């Protein structure tokens, strides 16, 4: 094998074997620190509170409508 073929082989190796592996090894950015120590639980807690508030509000509305429905005379009379 002369120098030129060795060089081409090396370059091909780099292009088709090492480069893809190297690219795949690049870590994909995710909120890992946020999950371990970044207080993601605070966000979850806030969302749970907001959701609970909305559901509570919906329940109150539901009960209020039920009360008004009972005030109305039923269909018979």
């Amino acid at each position, binding site marked *: 094998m002369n120098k030129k073929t060795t060089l081409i082989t090396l370059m091909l190796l780099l292009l088709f074997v090492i480069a893809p592996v190297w690219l795949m090894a690049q870590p*994909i950015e995710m909120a890992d620190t946020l999950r371990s120590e970044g207080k993601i639980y605070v966000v*979850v807690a806030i969302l749970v509170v907001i*959701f609970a508030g909305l*559901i509570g509000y919906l329940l109150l*509305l539901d009960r209020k409508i039920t009360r008004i429905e009972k005030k*109305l005379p039923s269909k018979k009379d």
Partner: protein
Amino acid sequence: MKTWLKVLATLLLLYTIVAGFLFDVPRLNIVNETIRALYFHVPMWFGMVVLFLVSTVYSIQYLRSPSIEKDVYAVEFANTGLLLGLLGIVTGMIWANYTWGSPWHGDPKQNGAAISLLVYLAYFVLRGSVENEDQRARLSAVYNIFAFAAMIPLIFVIPRMTSSMHPGSGGNPGFNMYDLDSKMRMVFYPAVAGWILLGVWIASLRIRVRLIDEKIQNLENE
């Protein structure tokens, strides 16, 4: 709506919020953590389609045997469906801004969704423009069936026939393709069920208010 369904909706959505933020998700380039929006953005559209379908069924029933109640059911299910659709389009724009580069690309999926929301808005314009109650109910029932029939190709067929960046259409795989271990399904399906149930709950409240209103008007007329 039965009480246990309301409880179920609450529990499913509570689970969605907690699991949706804390459970593992596939690591994807560009999308990164925004993949979690799948649990909140996509169920809006599922909910909208289900509510619109229920609305259409009541419209068909109205045309078979007219009654004020069926008209009220059709309107209020369409109303709540529209709310979910608007939330879906706004959340989609936020998501698109950070993954596609800008909020509005004129992507076939976005355009189709926008057109179908306009078609449904016209349903309420039509209702508002007819004075006679029976005429309003009948005309809008016919239009409502047309609106649903127009929505299906606009959202589900055309984006799949052309090229679209939206996952699940136009040569793009849906997220399920990456989700080989089905971890996301464990959150996604409960999320869809929960949001649909919440939509039905809100619609049922609106229906009851409307029916009370009808009753009071009848009492006043007597």
